[in-house]
């Protein structure tokens, strides 16, 4: 579904990703782990087409289409969804206006009011969010956890094919993390071809959304790849020990 080939990216004068490669198949869940400043969040923004980064080399291929040169909204309309690490607040724009505008941009015919309300109410309930949030400005006065739930609410309504979850567990308490992950897992059950890229420091979220592959990112490149056990090893030994696995890199 998503293939990144030899991607080198810089911001200002610093290269963040260096000859980066990954291949994520239909219906697969991958996790990228790594310490701070290794390029994890950069990767998510580059996939979405942020103008803060310059692609020096390489391609991002999504469902056979090269995304290089497409705007973020064009990429989103192809079915890519980024759950932000720090979702922003937008004063004056209600969740309802925002969501309806977004949904209508992602379909040919505008969604009917009844259908919208029905889907929205169902999703709000499944995420244990307050009913009146829909009339509030986007994330205004919301806690970190409420913001993350709002991201997943958007995901449920926009129905993307590919999810990027950037530090989803930050700001979420244990109960909220369970609720959010249960919603994502239900979404994946209903949409078998949907793929996921989880970006995380800690393996905690991977207990709830189990990845097929775990990649360790260091200095802009993947230095190790394995299954869920690799995440457990990171938790046990820390990232510094992963250096020792350099010889075991499973080149894709």
């Amino acid at each position, binding site marked *: 579904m998503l293939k990144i080939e030899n991607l080198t990216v810089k911001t200002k004068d610093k290269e963040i990703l260096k000859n980066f490669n990954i291949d994520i198949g239909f219906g697969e869940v991958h996790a990228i782990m790594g310490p701070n400043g290794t390029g994890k969040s950069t990767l998510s923004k580059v996939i*979405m*087409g*942020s*103008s803060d980064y310059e692609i020096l080399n390489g391609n991002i291929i999504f469902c056979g289409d090269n995304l290089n040169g497409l*705007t*973020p*909204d064009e*990429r*989103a*309309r192809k079915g890519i*969804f*980024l759950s*932000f690490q720090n*979702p*922003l607040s*937008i*004063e*004056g*724009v209600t969740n309802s*206006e*925002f969501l309806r*505008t*977004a949904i209508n*941009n*992602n379909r040919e015919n505008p969604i009917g009011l009844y259908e919208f309300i029905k889907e929205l109410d169902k999703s709000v309930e499944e995420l244990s969010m307050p009913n009146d949030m829909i009339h509030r*400005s986007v994330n205004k006065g919301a806690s970190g956890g409420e913001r993350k739930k709002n991201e997943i609410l*958007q995901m449920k309504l*926009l129905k993307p094919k590919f999810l990027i979850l950037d530090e989803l567990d930050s700001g979420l308490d244990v109960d909220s993390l369970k609720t959010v992950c249960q919603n994502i897992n239900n979404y994946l059950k209903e949409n078998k071809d949907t793929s996921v890229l989880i970006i995380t420091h800690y393996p905690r979220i991977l207990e709830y959304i189990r990845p097929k592959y775990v990649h360790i990112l260091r200095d802009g490149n993947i230095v190790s790849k394995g299954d869920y056990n690799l995440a457990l090893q990171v938790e046990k030994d820390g990232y510094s020990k992963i250096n020792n696995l350099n010889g075991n890199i499973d080149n894709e």
Partner: protein
Amino acid sequence: MNKLIIDNVDELSDLIITEDTNLLINLNNSNGFIHIDVMDNMCLYVLEFGNNTKNKVEYNLKANSKVIINKVSVNTSDKVYINLNGENSSIVYNTSIINIENNIYYQMINHNCSNTISNINNHAINVGDKSMVLDIDAKVFNGSSNCETNQDNKIINNSCGKNEIKPNLLVDNNLIEATHSAYIGSFSPDIIFYLKTRGINEEQIQELLTTGFLIEKMDLLDEEKDTITTFIKNYI
């Protein structure tokens, strides 16, 4: 509650509010004098739409009166004088402006009595290459204690217009609370990116953010919000 709908500036030249009143004002191409007295203990709610106005506007508030004004204007060079003449009088004045020509919007808030409150919010979008000036004076006089005066002024520059904000606090009393702020800039690139990642195109992002910015300080009923949103969309 008394309800008034006025679309002729002459009808506002000497209006005295003697009961709680809901006032809807529509003014086009007007250059007149508006004088409104709000008597003791009265509440006045004003929803005002304007297009090319250069009015001199005066609100005089007597004791314990409360005024809330939501004003949406396209090109306004109104000069607005608010006189808090009675103790415990208060005003919330939200002005939203779509600026297309050269305009200076002036407000003066006079705290002439103790225990008076003013909350002034001015949000303007300058859509062309002309100039927009917000010149806002709040005065608290020596004999007016325990007052509160706040003003928040923002201009979003959508093109290459020239903009200026003068957020003046002229205070001659130590026993008051006062804030003032001024911002001239554009919509946050991070917010624009966030909205784009949800598939929303550039044109609709501008529409969402402009409308949101212009009404964000207003506490509106759904029907009023729809009316204002429709009004704004005609000009963006």
